[in-house]
């Protein structure tokens, strides 16, 4: 019997090695695999390359991982935010490497890795600083730059429900990077609100087939869904965070 479920978040992140490239899903807080990031912090792997849309917020989650100096390089589209002070400090001090990628190229490069595409010509970024040094070509009168796949050793993503084969459904805009990161990593680790029996998920509505998933851990319903509060993270000291959703 195939059973990709594991008992807890610690088991889920077991074996992530120093120097690994780790994709982390989520756009802002939606789809952020909070419990898996906390487990990665506890697990201790360092010298990581992180692929995420942002570079951490406040002092929790990815920002906490950065604060512990576990991250050598980050590949993202939008590091600078009002609450990205952890990344900002590391970057100004030259303690973290940044590869800035336009968000759509980031998504497409991840998708290309999962789909076995060797490289692709994108019109995004043409003529800008972010295309400097990249191969350019005019095709049918339009200008493009050549973009390469982004692969990872591990993807940490969040979904709503899974079955034991690893089939996933997401919820609203929390879907964001999860489905493509799941395809682009050698090992895809997923936290879900709940594991449902095989055959429960509508095969027409499965977004990520279990083919792409290696480990699934149920972390319970996100309490934010009940009371509008975002909880579940830990701060730099490891203390639980309980914070109202920012409007």
């Amino acid at each position: 019997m195939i059973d990709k479920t594991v008992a807890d978040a610690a088991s889920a992140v077991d074996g992530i090695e120093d120097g690994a490239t780790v994709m982390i899903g989520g756009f802002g807080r939606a789809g952020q695999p909070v419990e898996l990031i906390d487990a990665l912090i506890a697990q201790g792997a360092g010298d990581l390359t992180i692929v995420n849309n942002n570079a951490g917020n406040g002092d929790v989650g990815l920002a906490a991982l950065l604060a512990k100096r576990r991250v050598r390089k980050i590949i993202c589209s939008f590091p600078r935010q009002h609450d990205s002070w952890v990344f900002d400090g590391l970057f100004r001090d030259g303690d973290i490497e940044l590869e800035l990628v336009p968000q759509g190229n980031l998504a497409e490069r991840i998708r290309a890795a999962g789909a076995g595409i060797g490289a692709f010509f994108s019109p995004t970024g043409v003529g800008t600083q972010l295309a400097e040094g990249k191969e350019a070509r005019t095709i049918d009168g339009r200008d493009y730059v050549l973009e390469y796949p982004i692969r990872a050793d591990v993807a940490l993503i969040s979904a709503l429900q899974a079955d034991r084969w690893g089939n996933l459904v997401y919820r609203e805009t929390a879907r964001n990077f999860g489905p493509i990161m799941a395809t682009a990593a050698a090992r895809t680790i997923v936290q879900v609100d709940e594991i449902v029996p095989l055959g429960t998920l509508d095969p027409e509505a499965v977004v990520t087939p279990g083919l792409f998933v290696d480990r699934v851990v149920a972390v319970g319903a996100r309490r934010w869904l009940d009371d509008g509060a975002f909880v579940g993270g830990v701060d730099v000291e490891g203390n639980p965070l309980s914070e109202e959703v920012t409007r």
Partner: protein
Amino acid sequence: MTTRISRQQLAARIAADIPEGAYVNLGIGAPTLVANHLPDDLEIILHTENGLLGMGPAPAEGQVDPDLINAGKQPVTALPGAAYFHHADSFGMMRGGHLDVCVLGAFQVSQAGDLANWSTGAPGAIPAVGGAMDLAIGAKSVYVMTDLLAKTGESKLVASCSYPLTGVGCVTRVYTDHAVFDVTDAGFAVREAFGDTTVAELEALTGLALVDATVVPERAKRHEGKDA
């Protein structure tokens, strides 16, 4: 002194140019105000690049759902007829030329339609681009919403951009607090000057030679796109 309209009036002015049935992406910041001025009796479908078509207004008090946010990470709602999708599909919609209109802010727009809106290029600034470059090159019509003059008094309409570019030759039209400008092969054309503003005054403010939009056609759309 030329006539200036308020930020809300400008949002309303842009909204008035968006036809029923249009698929529209409103950029982070001031462009989001346009949504408040879209007529209730017209169906205009809003796209947010983090994976939703059919975005609705902000939720009522106590109805915030942190899984349902816009590109600015603010809570939103979804209308009947909405659809969710992942980031690669979402940016495929944009890059593939399927959106009719995108409204963006700007630091500078050049008379060739180049847009600079992601970085001032200041030394030591931490860069962040997000979806700006994808939005700039993706929609059939790219509208810029901005004050004509920066806070320091310089014109944001320029002969060529000094700030780092977001996209080359991508802007269709610029909506400012003084006037609406089309980007044409002959440079900026004044499509509409607000109140008693004259073309001569706009030329003085921008330092650019301006043409009359009524005699120069709007720049051809760059994508074939849908004809619905």
